[in-house]
């Protein structure tokens, strides 16, 4: 292609280029007919002021908290969820969202030159602050990702506890991978693999649309799969919510152990009263716990070492490492064809030696980051096992503070109406309970 240009250009250039300025091949035309250049159109982005979004978020969180804790109304929560879906989802196109904002904040901690706008900071902090006081009201009705799944949760099934708890390891892994990705400069994984934002902004890759669609279809039966088994921000909300001052409670007053709410939670977040018939005695239990605590450093060490060993695999996530591999492979003749990326690389100023040096530096970063990730996962696993071994006696049906999404579904299942002492309803329920 170039040779044809060369021929044509040579003729033209022989005449023009000799006098032309170095930068431009062809001189500025002189128009005799009075023609004027049109101006260029450079439209500004239309941006909603940050204050508006922050206010809407605050109000939505506050109203949800009120709906869950004070007026205990499921329909109110559902309506707010629809509003959030429409506003934060379809209108604001799902970005800025608190789930993704955690990346920006973590990145700012790691990389001091990275600035975080006030709206991102607010979106990160407000749901967490509300969680510390009111529980996961953000998840209940304000998160657009949660809202779209909530719409689909029509006939939820109950998953078995073991499966639920094991799958609950995944959000920790996702959080760990996100931080690892930020620490090594690989990019924003949460934004990249957000399954629902494609629906909000009406644009995404085919694979992400497919993933989103599959998750929503699944969500009809396994309610809120992303929230329970993937959301990395949910880990932070869970931790915050564990210390919440006020939290959604199934019963408005006292629990009468009528068991009517047992299968009311689609998210398996109801803590049942501990039965007395423990097969293992206290001492054995304590010994087991002790053993587990002793083994924790070993397990964490093993997983950290595993992470470090697997760092090469993880390093392939980084585009520079992939480019270095491809450039080296082409240089060594393992590939005959070049790719767009290697063509662009060779057209640029960087030497392959520098690229390899960069890639090696990144590989080293991945070594340490993967080790930390491994250690983190080891801690999470041990934490879960310890939690399963520690028996906290509970006599009432209550919401699991960490897992409860404050969706208010269970309220309708509880027959207790307000503070009760000697009401007929209570007696009726107790009778029913005694019969079954």
């Amino acid at each position: 292609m170039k040779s044809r240009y060369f021929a044509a250009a040579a003729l033209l250039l022989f005449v023009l280029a000799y006098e032309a300025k170095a930068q431009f091949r062809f001189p500025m035309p002189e128009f005799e007919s009075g023609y004027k250049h049109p101006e260029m159109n450079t439209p500004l982005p239309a941006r909603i002021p940050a204050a508006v979004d922050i206010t809407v978020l605050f109000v939505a969180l506050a109203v949800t908290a009120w709906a869950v804790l004070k007026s205990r109304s499921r329909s109110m929560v559902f309506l707010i969820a629809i509003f959030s879906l429409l506003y934060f989802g379809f209108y604001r196109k799902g970005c800025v969202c608190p789930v993704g904002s955690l990346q920006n904040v973590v990145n700012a901690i790691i990389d001091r030159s990275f600035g975080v706008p006030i709206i991102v900071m607010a979106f990160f902090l407000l749901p967490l602050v509300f969680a510390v006081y009111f529980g996961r009201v953000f998840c209940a009705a304000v998160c657009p990702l949660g809202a779209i799944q909530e719409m689909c949760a029509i006939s939820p099934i109950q998953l078995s506890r073991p499966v639920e708890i094991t799958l609950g390891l995944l959000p920790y892994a996702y959080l760990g991978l996100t931080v690892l990705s930020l620490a090594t400069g690989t990019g924003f994984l949460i934004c990249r693999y957000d399954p629902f934002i494609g629906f909000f902004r009406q644009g995404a890759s085919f694979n992400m649309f497919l993933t989103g669609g599959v998750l929503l279809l699944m969500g009809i039966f396994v309610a809120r799969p992303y929230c329970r088994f993937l959301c990395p921000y949910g880990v932070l909300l869970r931790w915050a919510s564990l210390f919440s001052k006020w939290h959604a409670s199934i019963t408005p007053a006292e629990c009468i152990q009528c068991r009517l709410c047992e299968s009311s939670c689609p998210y398996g977040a109801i803590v049942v009263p501990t039965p007395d018939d423990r097969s293992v005695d206290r001492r054995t239990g304590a010994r087991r716990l002790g053993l587990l605590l002793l083994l924790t450093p070993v397990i964490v060490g093993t997983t950290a070492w595993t992470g470090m060993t697997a760092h090469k695999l993880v390093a392939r996530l980084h585009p520079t490492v992939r480019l270095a591999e491809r450039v080296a492979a082409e240089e060594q003749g393992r590939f005959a064809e070049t790719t767009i990326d290697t063509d662009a690389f060779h057209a640029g100023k960087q030497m392959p030696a520098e690229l390899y040096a960069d890639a090696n530096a990144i590989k080293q970063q991945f070594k340490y980051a993967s080790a930390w990730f491994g250690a983190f996962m080891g801690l999470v696993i041990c934490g879960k096992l310890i939690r399963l071994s520690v028996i906290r006696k509970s006599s009432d049906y209550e919401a699991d503070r960490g897992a409860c999404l404050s969706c208010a579904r269970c309220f309708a299942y509880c027959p207790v109406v307000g503070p009760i002492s000697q009401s007929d309803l209570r007696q009726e329920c107790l009778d029913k309970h005694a019969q079954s």
Partner: protein
Amino acid sequence: MIWMAAVAVAVVSGLFSLIVSILLIANYVQVQAITPLDNPELLKLRQQLAATPDADANLVTQIRAMDLLTRKAFFTSQAHLKMGGYLLLGGVAALLAAWRTAARCKTRLPQPDVAPPRGSYWMSRARAGELVGFAGALWVVTALVAAFFTRLDFPGTGVSAPADSTQVAQAESAAAYPSWEVMQQNWPSFRGPGGYGVAHYTTAPMKWDAGTGKNIKWKTEAPLPGANSPVVWDNRLFLSGATESAREVFCFDTESGQLLWRRALDKLPGTPDKPPKVGDETGYAAPSMIAHGDCVCAIFANGDLVSYDFEGNLRWAKNLGVPDNHYGHSSSLLAYQNLLFVQYDQNKNGKLLALDLADGHEVWAINRQKISWASPICVNTSFGLELVVNSEKNVDAYDPLTGQPVWQLACLDGEVAPSPAFGGGMFFVANDNAIATAIRFGANEQTPKPEIAWQWDEALPDVSSPLGTGQHFYVATSRGQIVCLDSITGKVAWGQDYDNGFYASPVLVGDRIYAVDRRGTTYVFKTGPVYELIATSRLAEDVFATPAFMDGRIYVRTEKHLFCIANSNEP
């Protein structure tokens, strides 16, 4: 009642959503196939049209129709995707609303579940613990197995090592070949020893005239045409020539000009039936030969590479593969110690090769990305011996014995034919339609780190290679300009316009520079910041090749002849 209505709506909207989804997916798949951006059908038609010299009306109509079709289809499908998206959203919203309503209608009063069996609570907890432990173990094992099979394949530090050759073998074979000093005393390759245009002997004649025969020692015919420059070793001069069907190497006696022998190449394994198309001026024997001790090598446009001894006995021959080169392969050969360097840069799969002169086997090879028509030079710098090559975009320097890249600088552009110049520890590269760059190195560095000293973009060469003298760099262009630039500052010391352009590269002989223009007129001028023309000599024949300079002799190849110029009062 409501329930039935809700179910009906749900079913209808569900089906609707399903149909729209399928249509959307089908639309997406289809638009991938007939995208106007890289449509193979359309591309084929366009290629057909480009191949024909005149616009075939039928073909034109076909292309126009196909182009309109793909564009229409593209924009229609975009609109459909958008509309479909909204419809799907609406359909799904209706489906969900209806389904919920239906489910609501059927809600039963909450019932306590069947009481779980005794001990199930504890079993469930225990199971959960087991499962978590199992998941953890599974993750560890998978990660370790995957890690075992993963290798990151790029060099740990530095760059990919080419094929190795042991130092001992190198030294042994090297001893059999001429040293750097001996090479200096001959004209072993294009632009002299090392290939950067500096003659060892300063006794060349300054004036001659082909018309009167003044100082013309002998003139003989060059049997086959070729753009390659003569190479001389002791009293032997070598040329190659080729046409579409013939490829030959010639050996002349330097005293008498007698053709001592000529050898025609046989068809080798890999030699194509017809050579590739080459430019008219390039020809089939553009690269210059090398003469090295007791052997000579020549390479031709079809990839044939051959080595003879000084008596014309074939040493070895191979075909390197037809070069993917749209003007024709022109990079000249270069030799050092036991290695023959072939700059085989192409559009794709270019290589820089080092072959063993004894039998032609590959000692090292570097994959190269960009095409080039320039030739390699081998220079002795303060960092050691470097093999320096130009290509589109880059100047690369390698260790000649091992092929290890030493440095690289991205400072070129366009289709590069001029080879690098070297002088005063600096390199100078230039190309027409691009820029000229002077490259310098930090004085106190351990390893050479190239940096751009200055750049210049006025009169630029596209065939003739520039020359470095230490204080200045000289550029001779195809438009007939010669410019002298100060090496350190890049300022123009002087510029002269001549009647005809220069294809031959200027050569430094002592304190004089010889520049031969396309019509065969040689201008001899003094080096230095002030222009001083010493002599003008005419050959009255076209000259593309760079002359060879030996003691008191100049050998010039013209379009049809070979001249030897010497002062007539010499024996």
